[in-house]
C-alpha cells in the first residue's frame, strides 16, 4: 500500500515538475521575443 502511495506521489511530483518546466520555458521564450521585438523596433526607428 505504501509502495503504491509513494509511486503515485512520485508520479504526481514528476507531473508538477514537468508542468513547471513547461511554463518556465514558455515564459523564457516570451521574454526573449518581447526583448527582441523592442530591440529591432528601436534600431529601425
Amino acid at each position: 500500500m505504501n509502495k503504491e502511495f509513494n509511486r503515485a506521489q512520485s508520479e504526481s511530483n514528476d507531473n508538477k515538475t514537468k508542468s513547471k518546466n513547461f511554463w518556465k520555458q514558455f515564459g523564457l521564450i516570451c521574454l526573449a521575443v518581447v526583448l527582441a521585438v523592442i530591440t529591432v523596433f528601436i534600431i529601425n526607428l
Partner: protein
Amino acid sequence: MYIAQRLSDFFEKFSNNIEFAFLVIISILAFSVLYYYLIKFLLDNNSGIVVAVFGFVTVIAGGIVICNERIGGTIFLLVPSLFVVVVVALYSVELKRLIWTRKNMRLLDVKHGDGSFYDEEKIQTCITEIIKALQDMSKNDMGAIIVLSTDNVPSQILDSGIALNSDISSELIESVFFPKTPLHDGAMIISGTKIVAAGCFLPLSQDMDKIPKDLGTRHRAGIGVTETIDVVSLIVSEETGIISIARAGKITRYADAVMLKQILSKYYWQELEGIKK
C-alpha cells in the same frame, strides 16, 4: 505625439516594403534566439539579477532613443552588444565549461580500437569496484580524489602524474591512495573503464566563499577541477572519512552508496535503477 509619429512611420514602412518587413522578421528571430540562450545561461548560473539589470537598461536606453529626435536607432545596438561582452567577461569559466561539455561524446558510444563498444557487464564491474574502493577508504580514513572524465582532462594535468592505463579494480585504487605511497597525494583520473593516471595535480578552486571552511586542500582541488572542465570528482576526506561528490564547482557531502551508484551510472550513461544484481 513625436513617439506616435515614429510608431506610425515604422508600421507604414513595415506594411509597404516587403524587403524591410522580411529583414525585421529575421532580425526579431535572430535577437530572440540570442536573448533566449543568454537569459537561459544566466538563469542556469543563478544570475537573475543580471537579467533584471539588462531589462532595466534596455527600457531606459530605449526610452531615451525613442524620445530624442537627434539620436538614431542604430546606436541602440550598443545595448545587446554590451550585454554579450559583459556576460562573456563575467562568466568566462562557465562558458568554457559549456563549450567543453558540447564536445563530449556519450561514453557508451565510444568505440574501442578494435571496433567494439563498451561492454555493459564491464561497466557494472567498474561501478562496483569504484564504490567498494571508496567505501573501504572511507572506513579506514584514507584520503582520495578520483576524477571521472570523458577524455577531456587537459594534458598538463595528466602529465603532472604517472600514466597507469590499467583496468579498474578496488585493490589498485586502494593501493594508490594507501598512505605514504608515492602516488597517494595526487588525484586519480578515470576515463571510461580505465585508470588513466594517478598522482596528478589539480587546479584549486578560487571561490573561497562557496567552500565550507572545514574543507581542506584536497576538497578544494576536487572542486576546482570541476569548475573549468566537465568532470565529476569523488573525494574521500582523510580526517573524517566522509565521501563527497563535486560537480560544476559545487560539492555534495555525505554521499552514500546509492548516490555514488547514481553518479557513476550517469557517468557511464546507463539507467541502472531497478536492475537487480
